[in-house]
């Protein structure tokens, strides 16, 4: 029994990605959901499962199911989780469909991440302590030192990578500028029309060294959604299916910690090192077969860690690999073709899956990867827990 090729993503939808939607998260979720249903050529009533995730800032499946007027929900899941579940929700939907729990599962993420609760702000700290997404330890041992923002926690990991492997600021900046370049061909991107050079990057203010402001992802109001159904049904729908070859959500040892984990044995490596063997085995492919990758880029450094740990280059070689153009649209493994979280928008990683589906359909326009047949979308910054899916057309 394997998940491979049993299901497919058949519809995608999104709202505009903005700094101030002026709308409720509920309204954003509904717009993206209806767009995904229409894109698939399905009827709303066909949806019988819903999955979402968030840190207290998405809208519950019961609200969206009600707004959609669904007569019956056969399966749902609301994950209290960060971006390391962005691929896991797709895997969950595929598991639900493959096991007969539901026929058409709507996966979505909606948030007012710019105009509502900002990650790293007071409301965020309060939410984390209230919901125990973190343990009580972060509030006791990090926050009183001033470590309250994701950028600071990931900065500690990035610095460790720099210590061990000599990763440079210019290499981080190259990740950021390549994402920005890709966003110029993506009208959906918040940074569309705002190109950035490496000098622009280096001249920008520090947030938490080694991160400058453009090492950090955007804050975004918006929503995106996708629909997973069985492979057979997928063939009769409006759009070419993106088949789910593999999906893994997993972790390495001592993975306690949503961001900085004080117990990990190696802060210069990521979850990817621990899940990649299962992932590739399920898909029946290896890194050399992957035509493009949407690597979860909450921070520029996250791309470097994942390039190494998914085997796109040797451990410690992520920086030089990026610098040599390895992740450009015409490089060895095009990465974050729509601009990623750094330049398209922060829909908490699910927008990477949506971008991947568009690429596999050949809808990438000026950012289309030629001959894209198999792609990966990942979830997890550089921490030891996260996941990924591999899709094919």
């Amino acid at each position: 029994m394997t998940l491979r090729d049993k299901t497919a993503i058949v519809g995608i939808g999104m709202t505009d990605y903005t700094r101030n939607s002026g709308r409720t998260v509920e309204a954003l979720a509904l717009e993206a959901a209806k767009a995904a249903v229409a894109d698939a050529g399905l009827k709303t009533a066909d949806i019988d499962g819903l999955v979402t995730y968030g840190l207290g800032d998405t809208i519950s499946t019961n609200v969206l199911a009600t707004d959609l007027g669904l007569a019956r929900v056969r399966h749902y899941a609301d994950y209290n989780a960060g971006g390391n579940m962005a691929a896991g929700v797709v895997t969950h939907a595929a598991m639900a469909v493959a096991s007969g729990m539901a026929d058409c599962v709507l996966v979505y993420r909606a948030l007012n991440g710019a105009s509502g609760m900002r990650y790293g702000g007071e409301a965020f700290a309060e939410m984390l302590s209230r919901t125990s997404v973190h343990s009580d330890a972060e509030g006791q041992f990090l926050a009183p030192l001033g470590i309250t923002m994701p950028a600071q926690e990931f900065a500690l990991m990035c610095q460790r990578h720099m210590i061990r492997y000599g990763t440079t600021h210019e290499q981080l900046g190259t990740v950021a500028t390549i994402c920005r370049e890709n966003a110029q061909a993506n009208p959906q991107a918040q940074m569309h029309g705002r190109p950035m050079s490496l000098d622009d990057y280096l001249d920008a203010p520090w947030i938490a060294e080694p991160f400058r402001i453009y090492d950090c992802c955007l804050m975004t109001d918006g929503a995106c959604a996708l629909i997973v159904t069985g492979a057979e049904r997928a063939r009769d729908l409006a759009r070419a299916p993106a088949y789910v070859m593999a999906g893994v959500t997993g972790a390495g040892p001592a993975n306690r910690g949503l961001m900085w984990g004080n117990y990990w044995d190696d802060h210069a490596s990521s979850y990817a090192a621990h899940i990649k063997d299962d992932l590739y085995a399920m898909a029946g492919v290896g890194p050399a077969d992957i035509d493009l990758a949407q690597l979860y880029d909450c921070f520029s450094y996250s791309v470097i860690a994942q390039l190494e740990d998914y085997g796109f280059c040797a451990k410690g070689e992520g920086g030089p690999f990026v610098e040599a153009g390895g992740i450009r649209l015409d490089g060895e493994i095009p990465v974050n073709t729509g601009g990623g979280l750094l330049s398209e928008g922060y829909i908490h990683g699910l927008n990477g899956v949506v971008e991947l589906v568009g690429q596999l359909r050949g809808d990438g326009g000026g950012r289309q990867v030629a001959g894209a047949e198999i792609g990966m979308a990942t979830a997890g910054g550089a921490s030891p827990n996260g996941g990924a899916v591999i899709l094919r057309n």
Partner: protein
Amino acid sequence: METPRPIRPKPTAMSQPFWDGARVGELRLQCCSGCGAHRFYPSAGCHKCGDDGYDWRAVPGRGHVYTWTVIRRALDPAFQARVPFTVAVVALDVAGRPLLPGTMLDCAPEDLRADMAVDIAFEPYDDDISLPCWRPAGEPEEEKT
């Protein structure tokens, strides 16, 4: 205007012995009954062997810098008033090599090095709470600026 204060740690039943030690300038850590590893943060089970038995032990507050960040922008006004400042995560020189984050004192960001030897200090927050800090090893108190 009164300077805003940083977040005050809220000790728990699990962590209270650490804070009791910090108040009197002593570093106290859990030591696993199963494998002998010390650990931090305080936790219910040992992340190295899974054993749930432990006792609290006073250990030397000496370690080496594992990683750090220089914070130059903070959302919390209490910390924005302090920027730039450095938080160092230090690998302690005890069995299990646990990591312990603390504010780096008496060391300019450009002087900080990986694997630099540092000693712990506890800076009083109020009568009950003192926060762990790090100083370059071997520098006498009176020489600090």
